[in-house]
């Protein structure tokens, strides 16, 4: 399958933070959740892909072409949605923000923009400074789709949204990907949003990729095992990716849950892990009572 994004061996050094040897690819027509704690390197990676900052080493291909200083044609095909979008200072109306944005894109479609405003229930006469967080996110998406973006890159788009709007937001994403030419890279620390829609999950920690795989494969592999603490011996611990110990028992993430459960015996409980479980246990490793 052709890739919407292919990042290979990407590195960027800052004093105090280093993004090292980041590689992953997002096949066209799919959705990738890009997860990690705050400060893990999500935004830096996204800024590098967008060409907003310069890499030290590595290669970035977007929609089949190497990103470089003269990649204006590729940038036309990218829609960028981020948390604190300013919309030219906020004093313009929604309609004028559309007009202004349209000047920067060859493929701007004003009819599509008007249609999306209706679909998203946005008033064209509203000043953008008066929009709620959710409305600003919808406006960003409407702008991206109106210049016919094939790749949507979203940096923490849902973090400031209330639960009701987050559901509407995921709904909008489902409508976007009904067009199989569109791909979405979606960074977040709210993993429940990804539990459903994401095809791939990429976990970054401390500037390094921990894994980048199909979500179903990850969820098939890792399970949560719970049991009494005194039954967890050294052999059992070796089967765990992370263990949480409490006075009442232990909870562990394991890639060999069946074996671990057999070792613990009748008191063991095995259950499906959530993306959050996998992120927290993988990143935290072995700790006591957090």
């Amino acid at each position, binding site marked *: 399958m052709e890739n919407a994004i292919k990042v290979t061996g990407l590195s960027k050094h800052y004093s105090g933070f280093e993004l090292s040897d980041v590689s992953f690819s997002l096949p066209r027509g799919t959705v990738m959740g890009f997860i990690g704690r705050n400060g893990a390197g999500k935004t830096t990676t996204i800024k590098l892909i967008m060409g907003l900052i310069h890499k030290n080493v590595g290669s970035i291909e977007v929609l089949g072409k190497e990103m470089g200083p003269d990649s204006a044609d590729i940038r036309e095909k990218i829609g960028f949605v981020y948390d604190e979008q300013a919309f030219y200072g906020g004093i313009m109306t929604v309609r004028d923000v559309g007009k202004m944005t349209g000047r920067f894109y060859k493929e701007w479609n004003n009819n599509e923009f008007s249609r999306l405003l209706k679909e998203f229930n946005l008033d064209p006469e509203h000043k953008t400074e008066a929009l709620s967080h959710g409305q600003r996110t919808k406006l960003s998406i409407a702008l991206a789709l109106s210049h016919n973006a094939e790749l949507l890159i979203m940096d923490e788009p849902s973090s400031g949204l209330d639960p009701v709007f987050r559901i509407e937001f995921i709904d909008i994403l*489902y*409508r976007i990907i*009904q067009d199989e030419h569109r791909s979405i890279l979606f960074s977040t620390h709210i993993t429940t949003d990804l539990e459903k829609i994401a095809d791939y999950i990429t976990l970054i920690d401390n500037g390094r990729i921990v894994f980048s795989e199909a979500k*179903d494969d990850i*969820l098939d592999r890792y399970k949560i095992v719970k049991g009494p603490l005194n039954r967890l011996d050294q052999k059992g611990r070796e089967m765990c990716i992370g263990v949480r110990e409490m006075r009442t028992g232990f909870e562990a993430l394991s890639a060999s849950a069946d074996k671990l459960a057999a070792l613990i015996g009748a008191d063991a409980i095995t259950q*499906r892990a959530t993306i959050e479980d996998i992120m927290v246990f993988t990143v935290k490793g072995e700790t006591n009572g957090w």
Partner: protein
Amino acid sequence: MSNISIIISQTSPRPIYEQIEDRIRSLIVSGELNDGDELPSIRVLAQDLRVSVITVKRAYDELVAAGFLTSVQGKGCYVSVKNKELFREQRMRIVEEKLDEAAAEARRIGMTLTELQLMLTIVFEEEK
């Protein structure tokens, strides 16, 4: 395209693609889906079930490989009953094995055939 009923559990330990696969397979075996019926597109079904596109694709791919669906490039997925009889035979063998077990257990505690038949009738009707 007809509406088909697929209910999946997001919390079940069973993988979601397996749940989708099983459900479509049983709709075919039970005759609710017939030869030539068109299935929803992968992306539409993903949206309706609130699961990922490749989760549905995986279920469809397995069903195509097992001969329950055929996929027509650029058009969609259609039910194909090539293997319906084979599948039914396999399932009947499982039923037979379970009945064997039940019969053995019944003999062990001295149940008569009539008693066992009566019990089966009750159990069978209850499930309906």
